[in-house]
Protein backbone atom coordinates (compact mmCIF):
# COMPACT_ATOMS: atom_id res chain seq x y z
CA UNK A 1 0.00 0.00 0.00
CA UNK A 2 1.32 3.41 -0.93
CA UNK A 3 1.88 5.70 2.02
CA UNK A 4 0.89 9.33 1.65
CA UNK A 5 3.90 11.65 1.69
CA UNK A 6 4.81 13.02 5.08
CA UNK A 7 5.41 16.71 5.51
CA UNK A 8 7.95 18.55 7.58
CA UNK A 9 8.68 22.21 7.84
CA UNK A 10 12.08 22.65 6.26
CA UNK A 11 13.90 24.88 3.85
CA UNK A 12 14.18 23.94 0.20
CA UNK A 13 17.19 24.85 -1.82
CA UNK A 14 16.34 27.92 -3.85
CA UNK A 15 14.23 26.48 -6.65
CA UNK A 16 15.50 27.10 -10.14
CA UNK A 17 12.33 25.88 -11.82
CA UNK A 18 8.79 26.98 -11.06
CA UNK A 19 6.37 25.46 -13.50
CA UNK A 20 2.61 25.62 -13.75
CA UNK A 21 -0.10 23.15 -14.62
CA UNK A 22 -3.62 23.87 -15.78
CA UNK A 23 -6.28 21.76 -17.45
CA UNK A 24 -6.88 24.38 -20.15
CA UNK A 25 -5.30 27.52 -21.52
CA UNK A 26 -7.46 29.63 -23.75
CA UNK A 27 -7.19 33.00 -25.37
CA UNK A 28 -8.35 35.96 -23.32
CA UNK A 29 -9.88 34.43 -20.22
CA UNK A 30 -8.78 35.78 -16.86
CA UNK A 31 -7.28 32.58 -15.43
CA UNK A 32 -5.28 31.90 -18.62
CA UNK A 33 -3.96 35.48 -18.59
CA UNK A 34 -3.03 35.01 -14.93
CA UNK A 35 -1.09 31.83 -15.71
CA UNK A 36 0.78 33.43 -18.60
CA UNK A 37 1.56 36.57 -16.55
CA UNK A 38 2.84 34.36 -13.73
CA UNK A 39 5.11 32.47 -16.13
CA UNK A 40 6.50 35.68 -17.66
CA UNK A 41 7.10 37.21 -14.22
CA UNK A 42 8.92 34.10 -13.00
CA UNK A 43 11.01 33.94 -16.16
CA UNK A 44 11.96 37.61 -15.78
CA UNK A 45 12.97 36.89 -12.18
CA UNK A 46 15.42 34.22 -13.35
CA UNK A 47 13.40 31.06 -12.83
CA UNK A 48 12.82 28.54 -15.53
CA UNK A 49 9.05 28.59 -15.88
CA UNK A 50 7.05 26.41 -18.23
CA UNK A 51 3.30 26.02 -18.55
CA UNK A 52 1.95 22.48 -18.83
CA UNK A 53 -1.54 21.79 -19.97
CA UNK A 54 -3.78 18.77 -20.15
CA UNK A 55 -5.75 19.88 -23.21
CA UNK A 56 -4.10 21.37 -26.30
CA UNK A 57 -3.84 25.17 -26.13
CA UNK A 58 -4.44 27.56 -29.04
CA UNK A 59 -1.26 28.36 -30.97
CA UNK A 60 -1.57 32.14 -30.55
CA UNK A 61 -1.53 32.48 -26.75
CA UNK A 62 1.91 34.08 -26.95
CA UNK A 63 3.78 31.65 -24.71
CA UNK A 64 4.92 28.05 -25.25
CA UNK A 65 2.54 25.53 -23.72
CA UNK A 66 3.69 21.95 -23.13
CA UNK A 67 1.61 18.78 -22.75
CA UNK A 68 1.45 17.53 -19.16
CA UNK A 69 2.90 14.19 -20.28
CA UNK A 70 6.25 15.90 -20.71
CA UNK A 71 6.27 17.32 -17.17
CA UNK A 72 7.85 14.28 -15.50
CA UNK A 73 11.15 15.07 -17.27
CA UNK A 74 11.15 18.50 -15.62
CA UNK A 75 10.11 17.53 -12.11
CA UNK A 76 13.05 17.72 -9.75
CA UNK A 77 12.96 17.79 -5.97
CA UNK A 78 13.98 21.45 -5.97
CA UNK A 79 11.33 22.56 -8.41
CA UNK A 80 7.89 23.91 -7.59
CA UNK A 81 4.71 23.17 -9.50
CA UNK A 82 1.80 25.63 -9.34
CA UNK A 83 -1.34 23.58 -9.83
CA UNK A 84 -4.23 25.73 -11.03
CA UNK A 85 -7.63 24.45 -9.98
CA UNK A 86 -10.81 25.79 -11.53
CA UNK A 87 -13.34 22.96 -11.64
CA UNK A 88 -12.03 19.38 -11.35
CA UNK A 89 -9.35 17.01 -12.60
CA UNK A 90 -9.80 13.59 -14.23
CA UNK A 91 -9.00 10.78 -11.80
CA UNK A 92 -5.75 9.86 -13.57
CA UNK A 93 -4.56 13.45 -13.18
CA UNK A 94 -5.23 13.32 -9.43
CA UNK A 95 -3.16 10.12 -9.22
CA UNK A 96 -0.38 11.67 -11.28
CA UNK A 97 -0.28 14.80 -9.12
CA UNK A 98 -0.24 12.72 -5.95
CA UNK A 99 2.74 10.72 -7.20
CA UNK A 100 4.85 13.81 -7.89
CA UNK A 101 7.30 14.30 -5.04
CA UNK A 102 8.40 17.83 -5.77
CA UNK A 103 6.83 20.82 -4.05
CA UNK A 104 3.31 21.57 -5.25
CA UNK A 105 1.25 24.70 -4.62
CA UNK A 106 -2.45 24.74 -5.38
CA UNK A 107 -3.71 27.94 -7.00
CA UNK A 108 -7.44 28.05 -6.38
CA UNK A 109 -9.69 30.10 -8.64
CA UNK A 110 -12.91 28.84 -7.05
CA UNK A 111 -15.54 26.42 -8.31
CA UNK A 112 -19.05 27.47 -9.24
CA UNK A 113 -21.46 25.67 -6.87
CA UNK A 114 -22.85 22.68 -8.75
CA UNK A 115 -26.48 23.56 -8.00
CA UNK A 116 -26.34 26.35 -10.58
CA UNK A 117 -25.81 23.78 -13.35
CA UNK A 118 -28.80 21.65 -12.42
CA UNK A 119 -30.92 21.04 -15.50
CA UNK A 120 -28.54 23.09 -17.64
CA UNK A 121 -25.37 21.10 -18.12
CA UNK A 122 -25.14 17.70 -16.49
CA UNK A 123 -21.41 17.45 -17.18
CA UNK A 124 -20.68 20.74 -15.41
CA UNK A 125 -23.05 19.77 -12.57
CA UNK A 126 -21.13 16.59 -11.80
CA UNK A 127 -17.73 18.19 -12.49
CA UNK A 128 -18.39 21.01 -10.02
CA UNK A 129 -19.64 18.52 -7.43
CA UNK A 130 -16.57 16.34 -7.94
CA UNK A 131 -14.30 19.40 -7.86
CA UNK A 132 -15.35 20.29 -4.31
CA UNK A 133 -14.65 16.71 -3.20
CA UNK A 134 -11.27 16.83 -4.91
CA UNK A 135 -10.47 20.12 -3.20
CA UNK A 136 -10.62 18.37 0.18
CA UNK A 137 -8.57 15.47 -1.16
CA UNK A 138 -5.92 17.74 -2.69
CA UNK A 139 -5.30 19.14 0.80
CA UNK A 140 -4.03 15.69 1.82
CA UNK A 141 -0.99 15.90 -0.46
CA UNK A 142 -0.61 19.57 -1.40
CA UNK A 143 0.12 21.54 1.73
CA UNK A 144 0.30 25.09 0.39
CA UNK A 145 -2.34 27.01 -1.49
CA UNK A 146 -2.90 30.39 -3.09
CA UNK A 147 -6.32 32.01 -3.38
CA UNK A 148 -7.24 34.94 -5.66
CA UNK A 149 -9.29 36.61 -2.94
CA UNK A 150 -9.87 36.34 0.78
CA UNK A 151 -13.19 34.72 -0.17
CA UNK A 152 -11.26 31.95 -1.95
CA UNK A 153 -8.69 31.76 0.83
CA UNK A 154 -11.44 31.24 3.42
CA UNK A 155 -12.76 28.35 1.36
CA UNK A 156 -9.28 26.83 1.18
CA UNK A 157 -8.89 27.02 4.96
CA UNK A 158 -12.31 25.46 5.42
CA UNK A 159 -11.14 22.57 3.25
CA UNK A 160 -8.07 21.80 5.31
CA UNK A 161 -5.28 24.10 4.13
CA UNK A 162 -3.25 25.77 6.81
CA UNK A 163 -0.68 27.56 4.67
CA UNK A 164 -2.69 29.86 2.45
CA UNK A 165 -1.44 32.91 0.56
CA UNK A 166 -3.56 35.52 -1.13
CA UNK A 167 -2.53 36.66 -4.60
CA UNK A 168 -5.07 38.69 -6.59
CA UNK A 169 -5.48 37.59 -10.16
CA UNK A 170 -3.11 39.49 -12.48
CA UNK A 171 -4.53 42.59 -14.08
CA UNK A 172 -2.20 43.78 -16.81
CA UNK A 173 -3.76 46.91 -18.28
CA UNK A 174 -1.26 46.84 -21.17
CA UNK A 175 -3.45 44.13 -22.64
CA UNK A 176 -6.35 46.59 -22.71
CA UNK A 177 -4.41 49.38 -24.38
CA UNK A 178 -5.41 48.00 -27.74
CA UNK A 179 -6.98 49.89 -30.61
CA UNK A 180 -10.74 49.40 -30.23
CA UNK A 181 -12.68 47.80 -33.02
CA UNK A 182 -14.02 50.60 -35.23
CA UNK A 183 -17.04 48.48 -36.16
CA UNK A 184 -18.13 48.20 -32.52
CA UNK A 185 -17.23 51.83 -31.79
CA UNK A 186 -19.46 53.03 -34.65
CA UNK A 187 -22.24 50.73 -33.54
CA UNK A 188 -22.10 51.72 -29.89
CA UNK A 189 -21.43 55.46 -29.89
CA UNK A 190 -25.10 56.49 -29.68
CA UNK A 191 -27.53 55.68 -26.88
CA UNK A 192 -27.15 54.07 -23.49
CA UNK A 193 -25.24 50.79 -23.41
CA UNK A 194 -25.60 48.56 -20.36
CA UNK A 195 -22.72 46.11 -20.38
CA UNK A 196 -21.99 42.78 -18.76
CA UNK A 197 -18.89 40.74 -19.55
CA UNK A 198 -18.62 37.07 -18.62
CA UNK A 199 -19.17 33.63 -20.03
CA UNK A 200 -22.84 32.72 -20.28
CA UNK A 201 -23.24 30.64 -17.16
CA UNK A 202 -26.16 30.31 -14.75
CA UNK A 203 -24.30 31.65 -11.70
CA UNK A 204 -23.91 34.96 -13.54
CA UNK A 205 -27.72 35.26 -13.51
CA UNK A 206 -28.25 36.60 -17.01
CA UNK A 207 -32.00 36.22 -16.47
CA UNK A 208 -31.77 38.92 -13.80
CA UNK A 209 -29.93 41.18 -16.24
CA UNK A 210 -32.79 40.71 -18.72
CA UNK A 211 -35.49 41.38 -16.13
CA UNK A 212 -33.73 44.55 -14.98
CA UNK A 213 -33.29 45.60 -18.59
CA UNK A 214 -37.03 45.14 -19.14
CA UNK A 215 -37.65 47.91 -16.60
CA UNK A 216 -34.83 50.07 -17.91
CA UNK A 217 -36.12 49.87 -21.48
CA UNK A 218 -39.81 50.27 -20.70
CA UNK A 219 -39.71 52.81 -17.93
CA UNK A 220 -36.43 54.62 -17.61
CA UNK A 221 -34.25 54.76 -20.72
CA UNK A 222 -36.09 53.82 -23.95
CA UNK A 223 -32.89 54.20 -25.96
CA UNK A 224 -31.01 51.65 -23.81
CA UNK A 225 -29.25 48.57 -25.17
CA UNK A 226 -28.15 45.53 -23.23
CA UNK A 227 -24.77 44.22 -24.33
CA UNK A 228 -23.81 40.76 -23.08
CA UNK A 229 -20.25 39.84 -23.98
CA UNK A 230 -19.13 36.26 -23.44
CA UNK A 231 -19.07 32.79 -24.86
CA UNK A 232 -21.98 30.36 -24.38
CA UNK A 233 -19.81 27.31 -24.96
CA UNK A 234 -21.33 24.29 -23.19
CA UNK A 235 -24.27 26.37 -21.98
CA UNK A 236 -26.51 26.25 -25.04
CA UNK A 237 -29.59 25.19 -23.08
CA UNK A 238 -29.13 28.13 -20.70
CA UNK A 239 -28.66 30.44 -23.70
CA UNK A 240 -31.90 29.01 -25.12
CA UNK A 241 -33.67 29.77 -21.85
CA UNK A 242 -32.42 33.36 -22.04
CA UNK A 243 -33.70 33.65 -25.62
CA UNK A 244 -37.10 32.43 -24.40
CA UNK A 245 -37.17 35.19 -21.79
CA UNK A 246 -36.18 37.78 -24.40
CA UNK A 247 -39.03 36.57 -26.60
CA UNK A 248 -41.57 36.42 -23.80
CA UNK A 249 -40.74 39.91 -22.54
CA UNK A 250 -40.49 41.20 -26.13
CA UNK A 251 -37.13 42.75 -25.35
CA UNK A 252 -35.50 44.66 -28.17
CA UNK A 253 -31.87 45.77 -28.44
CA UNK A 254 -30.38 42.86 -26.49
CA UNK A 255 -27.00 42.07 -28.05
CA UNK A 256 -25.44 38.73 -27.15
CA UNK A 257 -22.05 38.89 -28.79
CA UNK A 258 -20.48 35.49 -28.09
CA UNK A 259 -16.70 35.31 -27.78
CA UNK A 260 -15.05 38.57 -28.91
CA UNK A 261 -11.53 39.65 -29.84
CA UNK A 262 -9.57 41.93 -27.49
CA UNK A 263 -10.14 44.95 -29.78
CA UNK A 264 -13.89 44.29 -29.75
CA UNK A 265 -13.86 43.86 -25.97
CA UNK A 266 -12.07 47.19 -25.57
CA UNK A 267 -14.63 48.85 -27.85
CA UNK A 268 -17.53 47.43 -25.83
CA UNK A 269 -15.98 48.87 -22.66
CA UNK A 270 -15.31 52.21 -24.35
CA UNK A 271 -18.92 52.51 -25.51
CA UNK A 272 -20.49 51.27 -22.26
CA UNK A 273 -22.58 53.71 -20.22
CA UNK A 274 -22.74 51.43 -17.20
CA UNK A 275 -21.52 48.01 -16.14
CA UNK A 276 -24.21 45.90 -14.49
CA UNK A 277 -23.50 42.64 -12.66
CA UNK A 278 -26.20 40.39 -11.24
CA UNK A 279 -23.77 37.52 -10.65
CA UNK A 280 -24.33 35.40 -7.57
CA UNK A 281 -20.99 33.64 -7.56
CA UNK A 282 -17.63 35.19 -8.34
CA UNK A 283 -14.27 34.05 -7.02
CA UNK A 284 -12.76 37.39 -8.04
CA UNK A 285 -14.22 39.55 -10.86
CA UNK A 286 -11.76 40.83 -13.49
CA UNK A 287 -14.46 42.54 -15.65
CA UNK A 288 -15.25 44.77 -12.67
CA UNK A 289 -11.66 46.03 -12.75
CA UNK A 290 -11.69 46.33 -16.52
CA UNK A 291 -14.81 48.52 -16.33
CA UNK A 292 -13.11 50.71 -13.77
CA UNK A 293 -10.07 51.00 -16.02
CA UNK A 294 -12.34 52.31 -18.81
CA UNK A 295 -14.16 54.72 -16.45
CA UNK A 296 -17.43 52.84 -16.69
CA UNK A 297 -19.46 53.14 -13.48
CA UNK A 298 -19.99 49.72 -11.90
CA UNK A 299 -23.32 48.65 -10.47
CA UNK A 300 -23.11 45.18 -8.96
CA UNK A 301 -25.11 42.77 -6.84
CA UNK A 302 -23.32 42.26 -3.53
CA UNK A 303 -22.33 38.61 -3.52
CA UNK A 304 -19.34 36.33 -2.84
CA UNK A 305 -16.04 38.08 -3.81
CA UNK A 306 -17.63 41.05 -5.61
CA UNK A 307 -17.55 43.51 -2.65
CA UNK A 308 -13.98 42.47 -1.87
CA UNK A 309 -12.85 43.06 -5.46
CA UNK A 310 -14.51 46.48 -5.56
CA UNK A 311 -13.27 47.40 -2.06
CA UNK A 312 -15.88 50.10 -1.52
CA UNK A 313 -15.85 51.45 -5.06
CA UNK A 314 -18.73 51.48 -7.52
CA UNK A 315 -22.29 50.92 -6.36
CA UNK A 316 -23.39 47.69 -4.72
CA UNK A 317 -26.99 46.65 -4.27
CA UNK A 318 -28.08 44.12 -1.70
CA UNK A 319 -31.40 43.00 -3.15
CA UNK A 320 -32.49 42.20 -6.68
CA UNK A 321 -35.36 44.64 -7.01
CA UNK A 322 -35.37 45.02 -10.75
CA UNK A 323 -37.41 48.20 -10.87
CA UNK A 324 -35.24 49.90 -8.25
CA UNK A 325 -32.03 48.81 -9.98
CA UNK A 326 -33.42 50.11 -13.27
CA UNK A 327 -34.13 53.51 -11.71
CA UNK A 328 -30.64 53.48 -10.23
CA UNK A 329 -29.20 52.89 -13.70
CA UNK A 330 -31.22 55.87 -14.92
CA UNK A 331 -29.83 58.00 -12.09
CA UNK A 332 -26.22 56.98 -12.78
CA UNK A 333 -26.59 57.66 -16.50
CA UNK A 334 -28.45 60.98 -16.23
CA UNK A 335 -26.88 62.56 -13.14
CA UNK A 336 -23.54 63.66 -14.62
CA UNK A 337 -22.18 64.90 -11.29
CA UNK A 338 -22.91 61.59 -9.52
CA UNK A 339 -21.55 59.67 -12.52
CA UNK A 340 -18.28 61.60 -12.38
CA UNK A 341 -17.95 61.21 -8.60
CA UNK A 342 -18.37 57.43 -8.81
CA UNK A 343 -15.92 57.12 -11.70
CA UNK A 344 -13.33 59.24 -9.86
CA UNK A 345 -13.71 57.17 -6.70
CA UNK A 346 -13.46 53.91 -8.68
CA UNK A 347 -10.25 54.95 -10.36
CA UNK A 348 -8.39 54.97 -7.04
CA UNK A 349 -8.87 51.19 -6.84
CA UNK A 350 -6.57 50.43 -9.75
CA UNK A 351 -3.38 51.08 -7.79
CA UNK A 352 -4.29 48.11 -5.52
CA UNK A 353 -4.26 45.85 -8.57
CA UNK A 354 -1.29 47.22 -10.46
CA UNK A 355 0.71 44.70 -12.45
CA UNK A 356 3.84 45.66 -10.54
CA UNK A 357 2.19 44.90 -7.22
CA UNK A 358 1.02 41.52 -8.60
CA UNK A 359 4.60 40.69 -9.60
CA UNK A 360 5.98 41.73 -6.21
CA UNK A 361 3.37 39.71 -4.32
CA UNK A 362 3.99 36.66 -6.52
CA UNK A 363 7.74 36.73 -5.95
CA UNK A 364 7.26 37.26 -2.20
CA UNK A 365 5.02 34.19 -2.09
CA UNK A 366 7.54 32.14 -4.11
CA UNK A 367 10.27 33.19 -1.69
CA UNK A 368 8.12 32.28 1.27
CA UNK A 369 7.15 28.90 -0.20
CA UNK A 370 10.77 28.05 -0.85
CA UNK A 371 12.11 29.20 2.49
CA UNK A 372 9.57 28.48 5.14
CA UNK A 373 6.50 26.68 3.99
CA UNK A 374 6.06 22.96 4.56
CA UNK A 375 7.91 20.88 2.01
CA UNK A 376 7.28 17.30 1.04
CA UNK A 377 10.17 14.83 1.45
Amino acid at each position, binding site marked *: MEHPPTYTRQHMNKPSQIHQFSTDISLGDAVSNHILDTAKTLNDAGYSSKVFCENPAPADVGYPIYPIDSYENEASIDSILFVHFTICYPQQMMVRLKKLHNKKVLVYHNITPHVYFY*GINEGSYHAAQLGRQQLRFLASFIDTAIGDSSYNCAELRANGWETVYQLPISFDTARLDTKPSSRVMNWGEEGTNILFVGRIAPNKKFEDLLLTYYYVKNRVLPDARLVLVGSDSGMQSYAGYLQAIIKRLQLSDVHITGHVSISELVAYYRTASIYLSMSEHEGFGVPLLESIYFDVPVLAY*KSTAVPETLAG*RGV*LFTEKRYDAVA*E*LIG*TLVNDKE*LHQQIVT*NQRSLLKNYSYKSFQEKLLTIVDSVANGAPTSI
Partner: protein
Amino acid sequence: MIEQNNHQLIEIDDPEIDPEQIMVEIRRRMWVERKKRKYDQQNFPKFGQSDVFNRLADLELDSELYRYLDKANNAIGGVDTSAVLVDSPATRVPILGKIWRIIRANAHQLVLFYVNRTTRQQTTVNQEMLNTLNRLAILIQEQNETIEMLRAELETSVEKQAQ
Protein backbone atom coordinates in the same frame (compact mmCIF):
# COMPACT_ATOMS: atom_id res chain seq x y z
CA MET B 1 -45.68 54.86 -1.56
CA ILE B 2 -43.78 51.62 -2.01
CA GLU B 3 -42.50 49.88 1.09
CA GLN B 4 -39.19 50.99 2.53
CA ASN B 5 -36.76 48.33 3.70
CA ASN B 6 -35.02 48.72 7.00
CA HIS B 7 -31.67 47.84 5.47
CA GLN B 8 -29.98 49.80 2.74
CA LEU B 9 -30.68 48.65 -0.80
CA ILE B 10 -27.54 50.31 -2.16
CA GLU B 11 -24.07 50.74 -0.75
CA ILE B 12 -21.71 53.48 -1.89
CA ASP B 13 -18.57 53.90 0.14
CA ASP B 14 -17.85 57.54 -0.66
CA PRO B 15 -18.30 60.40 1.84
CA GLU B 16 -19.18 62.70 -1.07
CA ILE B 17 -22.27 60.64 -1.94
CA ASP B 18 -25.34 60.04 0.21
CA PRO B 19 -26.93 56.71 -0.86
CA GLU B 20 -30.10 57.41 1.13
CA GLN B 21 -30.67 60.63 -0.76
CA ILE B 22 -30.38 58.71 -4.05
CA MET B 23 -32.81 56.09 -2.76
CA VAL B 24 -35.38 58.73 -1.75
CA GLU B 25 -35.45 59.97 -5.34
CA ILE B 26 -35.53 56.42 -6.75
CA ARG B 27 -38.41 55.43 -4.49
CA ARG B 28 -40.32 58.54 -5.54
CA ARG B 29 -39.83 57.78 -9.24
CA MET B 30 -40.81 54.14 -8.77
CA TRP B 31 -43.95 55.16 -6.95
CA VAL B 32 -44.95 57.59 -9.71
CA GLU B 33 -44.24 54.96 -12.36
CA ARG B 34 -46.20 52.25 -10.59
CA LYS B 35 -49.18 54.55 -10.06
CA LYS B 36 -49.10 55.61 -13.68
CA ARG B 37 -49.12 52.02 -14.88
CA LYS B 38 -51.45 50.75 -12.14
CA TYR B 39 -48.78 48.31 -11.09
CA ASP B 40 -49.34 48.89 -7.37
CA GLN B 41 -50.64 45.41 -6.77
CA GLN B 42 -48.86 43.52 -9.51
CA ASN B 43 -45.89 41.29 -8.91
CA PHE B 44 -43.49 40.90 -11.78
CA PRO B 45 -43.16 37.27 -12.91
CA LYS B 46 -40.08 35.41 -11.84
CA PHE B 47 -38.18 32.80 -13.83
CA GLY B 48 -35.86 29.96 -12.97
CA GLN B 49 -36.35 26.73 -11.10
CA SER B 50 -35.68 28.08 -7.63
CA ASP B 51 -38.24 30.80 -8.13
CA VAL B 52 -41.01 28.55 -9.33
CA PHE B 53 -42.01 27.41 -5.88
CA ASN B 54 -41.74 30.92 -4.43
CA ARG B 55 -44.41 32.00 -6.88
CA LEU B 56 -46.80 29.42 -5.46
CA ALA B 57 -46.81 31.26 -2.14
CA ASP B 58 -48.37 34.27 -3.86
CA LEU B 59 -51.14 32.27 -5.49
CA GLU B 60 -54.54 31.33 -4.18
CA LEU B 61 -54.06 27.59 -4.34
CA ASP B 62 -56.13 24.87 -2.79
CA SER B 63 -54.67 24.52 0.72
CA GLU B 64 -54.13 20.75 0.42
CA LEU B 65 -52.35 21.15 -2.92
CA TYR B 66 -50.13 23.86 -1.43
CA ARG B 67 -49.34 21.76 1.65
CA TYR B 68 -48.30 18.72 -0.40
CA LEU B 69 -46.22 20.80 -2.80
CA ASP B 70 -44.59 22.56 0.15
CA LYS B 71 -43.68 19.23 1.75
CA ALA B 72 -42.36 17.82 -1.52
CA ASN B 73 -40.27 20.92 -2.24
CA ASN B 74 -38.79 20.84 1.24
CA ALA B 75 -37.97 17.13 1.02
CA ILE B 76 -36.31 17.18 -2.39
CA GLY B 77 -32.98 18.64 -1.23
CA GLY B 78 -32.51 16.26 1.67
CA VAL B 79 -30.89 13.31 -0.09
CA ASP B 80 -27.48 12.69 1.46
CA THR B 81 -25.36 10.16 -0.38
CA SER B 82 -21.97 10.68 1.26
CA ALA B 83 -20.29 8.21 3.57
CA VAL B 84 -19.96 9.48 7.13
CA LEU B 85 -17.96 6.96 9.11
CA VAL B 86 -17.46 7.60 12.79
CA ASP B 87 -14.52 5.95 14.55
CA SER B 88 -15.46 2.82 16.50
CA PRO B 89 -13.45 1.11 19.31
CA ALA B 90 -12.17 -1.34 16.66
CA THR B 91 -10.69 1.44 14.50
CA ARG B 92 -8.81 2.84 17.49
CA VAL B 93 -6.74 -0.35 17.92
CA PRO B 94 -3.11 0.45 16.98
CA ILE B 95 -2.05 -0.62 13.43
CA LEU B 96 -4.90 -3.12 12.91
CA GLY B 97 -7.45 -0.40 13.63
CA LYS B 98 -6.01 1.74 10.85
CA ILE B 99 -6.19 -1.14 8.38
CA TRP B 100 -9.73 -1.95 9.52
CA ARG B 101 -10.71 1.72 9.03
CA ILE B 102 -9.39 1.66 5.44
CA ILE B 103 -11.16 -1.64 4.63
CA ARG B 104 -14.38 -0.39 6.20
CA ALA B 105 -14.23 2.94 4.30
CA ASN B 106 -13.51 1.21 0.99
CA ALA B 107 -16.35 -1.24 1.51
CA HIS B 108 -18.71 1.64 2.25
CA GLN B 109 -17.51 3.54 -0.80
CA LEU B 110 -18.13 0.48 -2.99
CA VAL B 111 -21.69 0.11 -1.74
CA LEU B 112 -22.28 3.84 -2.03
CA PHE B 113 -21.00 3.86 -5.60
CA TYR B 114 -23.87 1.63 -6.69
CA VAL B 115 -26.42 3.15 -4.34
CA ASN B 116 -25.50 6.69 -5.41
CA ARG B 117 -25.82 5.86 -9.08
CA THR B 118 -29.39 4.68 -8.60
CA THR B 119 -30.24 7.42 -6.12
CA ARG B 120 -28.86 10.17 -8.34
CA GLN B 121 -30.97 9.02 -11.24
CA GLN B 122 -34.07 8.78 -9.07
CA THR B 123 -33.40 12.21 -7.51
CA THR B 124 -33.17 13.73 -10.97
CA VAL B 125 -36.49 12.15 -11.93
CA ASN B 126 -38.07 13.35 -8.67
CA GLN B 127 -36.81 16.88 -9.19
CA GLU B 128 -38.14 17.02 -12.73
CA MET B 129 -41.52 15.66 -11.64
CA LEU B 130 -41.68 18.20 -8.83
CA ASN B 131 -40.80 21.07 -11.17
CA THR B 132 -43.54 19.86 -13.48
CA LEU B 133 -46.06 19.82 -10.62
CA ASN B 134 -45.01 23.29 -9.49
CA ARG B 135 -45.36 24.61 -13.00
CA LEU B 136 -48.73 22.91 -13.46
CA ALA B 137 -49.98 24.45 -10.22
CA ILE B 138 -49.04 27.89 -11.51
CA LEU B 139 -50.66 27.26 -14.89
CA ILE B 140 -53.86 26.01 -13.22
CA GLN B 141 -54.02 29.15 -11.13
CA GLU B 142 -53.40 31.37 -14.15
CA GLN B 143 -56.14 29.55 -16.03
CA ASN B 144 -58.48 29.98 -13.06
CA GLU B 145 -57.81 33.70 -13.13
CA THR B 146 -58.54 33.79 -16.87
CA ILE B 147 -61.79 31.87 -16.33
CA GLU B 148 -62.82 34.29 -13.57
CA MET B 149 -62.07 37.26 -15.81
CA LEU B 150 -64.03 35.79 -18.75
CA ARG B 151 -66.92 34.91 -16.44
CA ALA B 152 -67.03 38.51 -15.18
CA GLU B 153 -66.95 39.80 -18.78
CA LEU B 154 -69.75 37.40 -19.72
CA GLU B 155 -71.89 38.50 -16.79
CA THR B 156 -71.34 42.14 -17.69
CA SER B 157 -72.37 41.62 -21.32
CA VAL B 158 -75.42 39.54 -20.26
CA GLU B 159 -76.45 42.38 -17.95
CA LYS B 160 -75.95 44.93 -20.76
CA GLN B 161 -78.04 42.87 -23.15
CA ALA B 162 -80.80 42.50 -20.55
CA GLN B 163 -80.92 46.28 -20.18
